[in-house]
């Protein structure tokens, strides 16, 4: 691991000042950054330990649940309000990583975790995400685990977060601070498609820190659910996953949100496709129409075409399970 300066921030103001220095990187649970520093994929000039800042709260204020960026994945998954008002968040968190990692990993860190693309994680290969314009071996090489949605000629890497998929279905908003600015970004606008700049993964600017995640209460939230399909039963990233929330009135869909994980370079959702379900009954035919629209932009390779079948199956199963709503 390359050496770095280590700073322990004692206040948010101090942390933001330290993070304003180019090359600085926040350290929370460390479960992503320490791994990538050992691999030489990340080599920050300075780490700013934000672990003792008071950003770990989980509070319901009016109709919004505010989750502090430093709340652990375990604490959020076990929170009674999260479990009753937004079960999809709890289920997504519990489907991710292991008990040890969930205890350490923060909510902000979960949203900013890096892709598991083997080319990205290994210096033996070029990677446009790791080093701009160096190439993307996944285009022609082993890409069975790579993305089918939102891809570009420069990058096929999948966004690995289960949490982000759940939050996308719930219209969550990410609170971001820097020394000078405070802003709130809907999760739907938080991640950036790779395009020709795969090294730019989110709208976060240098010096910014996630402080919280706001989740608006909704009528569909309590019925939300997460289904994750993967190569082994536990402790594995998604091959395909679905976060779904649906509410019917008199047997017809009144509200619906479906987000996909494991398939996209970013967590994937299509409101125009969802509109096809509104006012319809949930059955094999209407769900098939929805899936066709949702997956129409997919550009699978020979090796990862199976993900489309997984996604269709997971969507059918998740929505049909909710059909009695």
């Amino acid at each position: 691991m390359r050496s770095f300066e280590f700073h322990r921030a004692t206040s948010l103001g101090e942390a933001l000042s330290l993070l304003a220095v180019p090359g600085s990187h926040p350290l929370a649970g460390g479960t992503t950054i320490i791994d990538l520093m050992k691999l030489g994929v990340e080599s920050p000039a300075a780490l700013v330990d934000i672990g003792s800042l008071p950003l770990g709260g989980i509070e319901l204020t009016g109709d919004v649940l505010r989750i502090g960026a430093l709340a652990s994945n375990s604490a959020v998954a076990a929170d009674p309000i999260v479990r009753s008002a937004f079960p999809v968040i709890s289920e997504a968190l519990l489907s991710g990583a292991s008990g040890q990692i969930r205890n350490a990993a923060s909510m902000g860190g979960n949203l900013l975790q890096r892709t598991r693309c083997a080319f990205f994680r290994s210096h033996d290969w070029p990677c446009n995400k790791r080093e701009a314009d160096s190439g993307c071996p996944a285009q022609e090489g082993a890409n069975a685990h790579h993305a089918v949605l939102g891809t570009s000629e420069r990058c096929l890497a999948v966004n690995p977060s289960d949490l982000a998929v759940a939050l996308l279905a719930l219209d969550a908003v990410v609170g971001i601070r820097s020394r000078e600015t405070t802003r709130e970004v809907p999760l739907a606008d938080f991640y950036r498609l790779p395009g020709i700049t795969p090294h730019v993964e989110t709208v976060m600017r240098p010096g910014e820190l996630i402080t919280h995640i706001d989740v608006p209460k909704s009528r569909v939230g309590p019925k939300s659910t997460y289904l994750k399909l993967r190569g082994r039963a536990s402790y594995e990233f998604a091959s395909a996953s679905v976060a779904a929330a649906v509410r019917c009135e008199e047997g017809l869909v009144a509200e619906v949100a479906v987000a996909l994980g494991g398939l996209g370079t970013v967590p994937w959702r299509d409101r125009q496709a969802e509109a096809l379900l509104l006012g319809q009954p949930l059955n094999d035919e209407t769900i098939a129409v929805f899936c066709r629209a949702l997956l129409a932009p997919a550009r699978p390779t020979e090796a990862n075409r199976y993900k489309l079948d997984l996604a269709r199956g997971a969507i059918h199963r998740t929505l049909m399970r909710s059909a009695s709503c």
Partner: protein
Amino acid sequence: MDSSRPTARIAVIVNGKPATIVVDVRRTLLDLLREDLLLTGTKKGCDHGQCGACTVLVGGRRVLSCLKLAASAEGQSVTTIEGVAHPDELHPLQQAFIRHDALQCGYCTAGQIMSALEVVADSAITTREQVREQMSGNLCRCGAYNGIVDAIMDVKAQLNTGAHAVL
């Protein structure tokens, strides 16, 4: 220590004993325990958070010591496998691992037990399936998984019996 390398002074409590130590900021908690404090019961398996062999308790919660910088453990309380047994008697979980043949080579065992301590204490985890899911971050290449789940379920049953006896 090479003065050109950034260091950090940290105060931690390991198995109940306070320690103050100056470490290279790159030191992981795992290497601090093994190399500086000579507590070699905690094992290094993959060193990348994939195997669970390095599991310890920090602040009473199981974490991977290979993915935690020692410098970020300032002021925290760490429990390793060396701090689990009572002076004259193995911890009930250690006894159960022996009773149920929950190991062969033993390399993963310290991590398994540190992880299982949290699973045993969590009353919401009641079934074998839940135990398997909750222990999925601890790999055992000898394949002693059935014995490990047996041992954990055994200790859970002992705890339940104890609780009823108190009632």
